[in-house]
C-alpha cells in the first residue's frame, strides 16, 4: 500500500498529541512543573540560603538539582502511570489498539513527550535557582547532567508504564504512583539532605531504588567540589538496569483494554448496556 506515513512522522504526531494533552490538564501540569518550584521556594525561606554545614554548599545548590530531579520524575513516572491507566479505563487504549499504529510508536510518543515535559521542569527549576538563588551551573559538567537526565527519564518512564501495566485502574495507579514516589523522595535525599549518621536501613532502602541514583548522579553535575566532568557511570548503569527490567515487565503485562470490574467507569458503562 502506498502512502503509509513514515515512522518518524507517526512518532512526531504522537509526541505532539501527548504533549498537548499534558498542557490541557492544568492540575497535572501544576503538580509536575510548579509544585517542585514551590517546595524549593519554601525550603529556601525556611532554611535560608546558608551553607549546609557538613556539605559546604548552599541550600539552593543542593535543592535546585534535587527538586529538578523530582520534577523530572513527576513528569515521567507519575504522569505516565496515571494518564496511561486512565486512558485504558476510558477505552482510549482500546481504540488505539484497533488502529494500524504500532504499539511501540504509541509508547514512544508518550515517553518522548514525558521526557520533553521533564526537560521543561528541570529548566524551570535550574532557571529559578540561577536567577534568584545564586545557583552555580558549570559548563564542564553539562554533558553529564544531560546524559543523567536522559537516562533517568528513560528509567522512570519505563517504571511509570510498568505501574500502568500492573494497576487495575486509573485510581489505583494514582495511589500507587504517589505512595511510592513521595516516601522514596525522603529516602533518596530529595526532600531531606541525608544526615551523616542516618540509619543503615534507611540508606539501604535509598540505595536499592533508582531515585537516589538519579539524584546523586544529577547533583554531581552541580557539586562545587567536583573538578571533573562528573559522569557517574555506576549510578547511570544502575538506572539503566531498573529501566530495562521495568520496560520488559511492562511489555509483558501491559493490557490495552479496560479491566473488567477494575474501574468504576467500566462498571457504569456495563450497567448502561440495554438488555
Amino acid at each position, binding site marked *: *500500500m*502506498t*502512502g*503509509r*506515513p513514515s515512522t518518524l*512522522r*507517526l512518532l512526531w*504526531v504522537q509526541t505532539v*498529541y501527548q504533549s*498537548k*494533552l499534558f498542557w*490541557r*490538564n492544568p492540575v497535572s501540569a501544576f503538580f509536575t512543573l510548579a509544585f517542585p518550584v514551590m517546595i524549593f521556594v519554601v525550603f529556601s525561606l525556611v532554611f535560608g540560603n546558608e551553607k549546609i554545614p557538613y556539605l559546604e554548599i548552599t541550600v539552593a545548590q543542593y535543592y535546585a538539582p534535587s527538586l529538578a530531579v523530582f520534577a523530572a520524575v513527576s513528569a515521567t513516572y507519575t504522569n505516565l502511570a496515571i494518564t496511561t491507566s486512565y*486512558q485504558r479505563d*476510558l*477505552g*482510549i487504549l*482500546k*481504540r488505539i*489498539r*484497533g*488502529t*494500524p*499504529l*504500532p504499539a511501540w510508536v504509541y509508547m514512544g510518543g508518550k515517553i518522548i513527550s514525558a521526557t520533553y515535559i521533564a526537560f521543561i521542569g528541570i529548566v524551570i527549576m535550574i532557571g529559578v535557582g540561577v536567577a534568584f538563588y545564586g545557583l552555580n551551573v558549570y559548563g564542564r559538567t553539562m554533558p553529564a547532567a544531560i546524559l543523567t537526565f536522559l537516562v533517568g527519564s528513560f528509567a522512570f518512564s519505563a517504571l511509570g508504564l510498568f505501574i500502568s501495566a500492573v494497576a487495575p485502574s486509573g485510581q489505583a495507579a494514582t495511589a500507587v504512583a504517589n505512595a511510592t514516589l513521595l516516601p522514596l523522595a525522603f529516602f533518596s535525599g530529595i526532600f531531606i539532605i541525608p544526615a551523616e549518621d542516618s540509619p543503615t536501613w534507611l540508606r539501604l532502602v535509598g540505595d536499592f531504588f533508582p531515585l537516589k541514583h538519579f539524584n546523586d548522579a544529577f547533583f554531581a553535575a552541580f557539586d562545587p567540589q567536583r573538578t571533573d566532568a562528573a559522569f557517574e557511570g555506576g549510578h547511570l548503569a544502575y538506572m539503566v538496569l531498573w529501566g530495562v527490567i521495568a520496560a520488559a515487565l511492562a511489555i509483558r503485562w501491559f493490557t490495552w*483494554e*479496560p479491566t473488567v470490574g477494575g474501574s468504576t467507569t467500566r462498571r457504569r*458503562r456495563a450497567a448502561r*448496556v*440495554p*438488555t
Partner: protein
Amino acid sequence: MAAIEVRGLVKRYGDLEAVAGIDLTVLEGEVFALLGPNGAGKTTTVEILEGYRERTSGDVSVLGYDPGDPPREFRERIGIVLQETSVEPELTVAEALDIYGAIYPRRRPTGELIELVGLTDKRDDRVKTLSGGQRRRLELALGIVGDPDLIFLDEPTTGFDPSARRQAWTVIENLRGLGKTILLTTHYMDEAQHLSDRVAVIARGRIIAAGTPETIGGRADAKTMIRFRVAGVALDSLPLVPVRLDGGFVEIESSDPTRDLYTLTRWALDNEIELEDLVVDRPSLEDIYLQLTDDEVTA
C-alpha cells in the same frame, strides 16, 4: 468475493463457551447485521474478527487476513466503531480526527468527515463538551477516518435521538454506496431492516437464523394478520373465521389478504358495521426476532 469468511468459530472462556461454532460469510459491499440478545456471543464474535480477541478454534479470514495474527495492512483496511472505546476528552473534534487520521495511509479529510457526521458546529469544541449522540457520531467519523474497506459498527446508534439516528443511517447508506462492506450489530430491528442486506440472529453462541430481513425466520411465508374491533355483532356472523378474540378485538389470519379484506369490508359495508382500529399487518422483523430468541431461551 467474501470480505469475511468464518467456519466453525469457537471461543471458550474456561468452561464457558461464548461462541459455540459459528459459520458466517459476509460478501464484499454488503451490509450485514448481527442480531442477538446480550451475552449471545455477538461482541465476542465481532472482536475476534477485529483482531481484539484470539479464537479457541475455527477458520477465520477477514479481507484475506487472519485477524488472530494480522499484519499492519489489516488494520489499515478496517474501521472499528466500538461501544467501549472513547476519545480523549480534552481534544477538539477536529484534532481527534487529525491525530487518528495521521495514522492511516489513505485518509479522509477532516472537514469532509465532520460534515458527513453533522458536527460542523462542533468542529473546535472539546470532546468532553459533546452530547452522547454527538460523541457517537464522532466515533463513527473516527471509524472511517482511514477510508476502510470493511467497517465494524457495534450498535452505532444506541443512545441517539430519532433525527440523529436518521442522520447516522444516511451516513451508513452513503458508505455502502461507496462499496464499503459493513458488519453491524444492533438492538434495533428497524435499523437492521433499514440498513442491512442480510441479517443473522445469534443466541447462545450459535447462529439460529440467517437471511435477508424480508425472509429471515420464515417471515416471507408468514400469514398476514387482519385485526379490528367490532361492537354488538354476533361473532358467528363474521364472514371469516377468527384465530383469536381478545377484549373485543378480532384477529384473522390470512394467506390471501386482498381477497379476505374485500370479503370483510364488503360484509361490513352491507351490514353497516364499523371495523374499528382496522390493521393489516405482517410479522415485523422484531416479531420474528423475539420469536426466534424466545424459542431459544425457553428451549
